[in-house]
């Protein structure tokens, strides 16, 4: 990988540009690292720079490392619009703030420079107290992709066209109609639970399953691998027979 550092200089006020941002060439395009100066200043300086270097930068793909800045969807949307108006593409936002990361994800931006590879199944992470998991309290709509190395819990529906890729278990407290990949790192003991299971496709570790059309009433179900096959069983804590 060859890194090209664009001259750190000073702006009119004598403030080093590098405290506002730095631009570096990386394999995926250009990486713009924003400094800790106030957001308005950083933003203005960046836009000014993009305008100055318009011809040079034309068509580039930008990744934005916003560091510690806390950005709302409106801020990110604005900077994305400004960037796209200059014939550039903003494809990723890297942030130290999980909130900002999530905001970037809802705008369809990447939050890692390279796709995170699910952790190899070397260590068995299941069923230990305090496994890392994320809780998402909303409905995932079509086009939304949620990826997490740990477990995933959704309070809401997973609509067709949405996908969840989890290193561990996936629990959907709602209707599951999209695609779920549990145990994506190869963990065959991962399970998928949903109150209403009608997914387009399920994957556990390396096994793919398409669920048949359900007949009759919906009920909570748990899906796991039994003897190499993906099996869905009704969740019935009080078995009558």
């Amino acid at each position: 990988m060859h890194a090209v550092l664009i001259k750190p200089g000073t702006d009119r006020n004598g403030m080093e540009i590098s405290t506002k941002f730095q631009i570096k060439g990386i394999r995926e395009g250009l990486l713009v690292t924003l400094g800790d100066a106030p957001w308005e200043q950083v933003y203005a300086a960046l836009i000014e720079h993009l305008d100055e270097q318009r011809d040079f930068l034309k068509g580039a793909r930008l990744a934005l490392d916003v560091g510690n800045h806390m950005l709302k969807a409106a801020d990110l949307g604005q900077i994305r619009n400004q960037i796209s108006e200059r014939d550039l593409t903003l494809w990723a936002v890297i942030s130290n703030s999980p909130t900002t990361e999530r905001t970037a994800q809802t705008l369809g931006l990447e939050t890692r420079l390279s796709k995170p590879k699910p952790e190899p199944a070397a260590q068995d992470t299941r069923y230990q107290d305090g496994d890392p998991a994320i809780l998402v309290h909303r409905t995932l709509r079509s086009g939304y992709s949620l990826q997490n190395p740990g477990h995933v819990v959704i309070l809401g529906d997973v609509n067709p066209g949405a996908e969840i890729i989890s290193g561990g278990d996936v629990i959907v407290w709602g209707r599951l109609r999209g695609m779920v990949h549990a145990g994506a790192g190869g963990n065959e003991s991962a399970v998928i639970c949903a109150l209403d299971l009608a997914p387009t496709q399920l994957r556990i570790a390396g096994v793919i399953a398409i669920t048949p059309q359900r007949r009759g009433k919906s009920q909570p179900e748990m899906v796991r691998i039994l003897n190499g096959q993906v099996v869905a069983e009704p969740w019935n804590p009080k078995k009558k027979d």
Partner: protein
Amino acid sequence: MDYSGNGKQFSGKVVTVTSGKGGVGKTTLTANLAAALAADGQKVVCIDGDIGLRNLDVVLGLENRIVYDLVDVVEGRCRLRQAMIRDKRLPELYLIPAAQTRDKNAVSPSDMIRLTNELRPEMDWILIDSPAGIERGFRNAIAPADIVLVVTNPEVSAVRDADRIIGLIEAEEKGPARLVINRIKPAMVKRGEMLSMEDVLELLAIELIGLIPDDEGVVTSSNRGNPIAIEGKSKAAQSFRNIAQRLQGHKVPFLELQEDGNLFGRLARLLRPGGN
């Protein structure tokens, strides 16, 4: 619910009509909604956001009067007023047509915000007809919106796209979007051959603001450039007028689309063999 924004009478509301999928009736809804609002005495301007594939002018019957268009305004070749075509039937209805010889990139989201801000003081309603898709044209249309109407047909593919669009609207914090289900065929719903209103709402889970039955009269009136909502007597015409009423904050019950009084879908769900 009052969508008109109490106390903000000096500022027009921007309503964007969008869908994701093409051909579900965005342009027809925009034209009829505009006509219905204008017939209620509101000042209305519609903006055709479909640059390069314009047709709101055709549906409104104003095609032959286009001199300047949206791109001319944005690029400063004319004043905003010059691009506003005044309807002859309804004096407070205006259209800003799209350019046909350019593409979506000729306009940016901030252009649309500037333009609508200029229109707000003079107008009660600014309706934007969004193009299909989720790219630049969609983002242009959505950028200035106060209210977003998502149009869908009771078809699986249209509902999927509507779901995607609603997600994008939520991400842009333009929500909550309101849903219009267009081209319902009550007889097919009754036979369980078409998604029912309940099926669609169950998936999309947003507030419903309109139900429009399938009606050949809508096609005829669109072809003639004479929106059915102006004088039409059919249920479809009434449905368009009802949406306009609801936008103005009036409580209007949804029309019974099933002739024999059955709440459509109820029977269908009993008869249907499986899930979806």
